[in-house]
């Protein structure tokens, strides 16, 4: 994974100096993503559940990466609403695309399906920043 990261350089420069909200309930996955974003020069604000995500979404954020299902049958929808209200772009990240099909379609944001390459995540965040 690391070798691939180095060879594609995707999103490194453009994420530098940005603040990224990551909401993800699998800490191992979050660990991997957050490290990769920090290596790209970004500052990561991390929430591991809906409550923390909602709490942290109020800080200044440039872009967000949201896991769709956050356990306890909760989804990231309330966070999506807050981000929308503030005009912050975001990317969805889900291992449950089939089951959450309608929920995801209704949100109408870019979706990355787990498991997803770190370089792809970084590129998607750069793209979201450009459109947002």
């Amino acid at each position, binding site marked *: 994974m690391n070798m691939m990261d180095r060879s594609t350089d995707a999103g490194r420069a453009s994420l530098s100096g940005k603040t990224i909200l990551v909401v993800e*309930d*699998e*800490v*191992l996955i*979050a*660990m991997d993503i957050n490290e990769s974003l920090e290596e790209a020069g970004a500052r990561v604000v991390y929430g*591991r*559940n809906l409550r923390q995500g909602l709490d942290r979404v109020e800080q200044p954020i440039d872009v967000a990466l949201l896991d769709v299902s956050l*356990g306890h049958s909760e989804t990231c929808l309330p966070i999506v609403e807050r981000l929308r209200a503030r005009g912050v772009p975001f990317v969805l990240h889900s291992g449950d695309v089939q089951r959450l099909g309608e929920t995801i379609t209704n949100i109408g944001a870019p979706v990355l399906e787990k498991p997803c390459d770190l370089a792809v995540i970084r590129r998607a965040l750069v793209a979201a920043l450009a459109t947002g």
Partner: protein
Amino acid sequence: MSDQAHRTASDRETERGNDFDRARDQAQRMQIHSESGVLFEQAMAQTRMAICLADPNQEDQPIVFVNRAFRELTGYEEDEIVGRNCRFLQGPGTDPAQVRKLREAIASEDVVVVELLNYRKDGSTFWNALHLGPIYNEDGSVRYLFGSQWDVTDVHAARADEKHARMMEREISHRMKNMFAVISSIVTMTGKLDGAEGLAEKINARIRSLGRAHEAMLEVSFTEGPTDPRKLFEDLLTPYAPQGRDSLTLTGGKVPLDSNVVSVLALTLHELAINAVKHGAFAAQEGHVSLEWQVIDGSDGDGRLRLLWTETGGADPGPGPERHGVGMTIIGRMLAMGEGEIRYDWRAEGLHVDIQFPTSI
């Protein structure tokens, strides 16, 4: 139903009166007299159990009595029922084997309980738990066949759902094992071709632990409250323990666990076990690990799982490593991410580790 709601109390009174009259008429027809006759009338009219009596001494064993619950269950009126053999409730979906069982029981004067798919007057079906048995005359000859029926359609649906869930569970288990096996093979193959077999094996050991942990928790429904993590701990640690289960003491009860805590638990215990194999209790044949767990209150009011890992019988671990290895670095970072903590105490008798993290990550 709404129809029923609009009935006045006096309507209901009249209806109940009619029911009693009807039961009395039938009781008279059946020559049930005196006090037992009155009891019979009232009991039959009131019970919510659908009841019928058939006469085995008449041609084709016709029904001679049904109560109100029977009429309500089947949707037929009394004059459409009395005089007919019970089989008019059967239809194309009724299992002939169950009907045969019924027939044999009647012939041998046995009491039998069968579940039959029956049909109402409007063609709709219901699962009928039918209890059938003989009622005798004083001389020992069969006087009536007594049938009580209960609509068990809901039970049937629940059972079918459960069966389906079991099937899915097995399918998921199978696919999951396959997936972990495939991942393992890829890691091994890549390691071999890239000259990193040692690294591949380390990765594989972690993957195997994850697989074992998720397999152990597959039957656990995380939404149904606290779960017993004993099997999870056993499956994770036994492969590394020199004398298997005998090298372990597991103490603790049920704890509320979220599914995403399983991976964290699995990797944490895996690293501790690997460390014990290399430098601690699992390196000695007589070495022992005690794992205690309990739920404690966190500062934010959320429950935290506390694990106490105590090694004995191994070599003196010394003052502890200057620098943590890969495994301990992984646990440390992972627990920090999930707002957990880990403390190592390198005691002379063996390593002692105190771990805490939220039960819901």
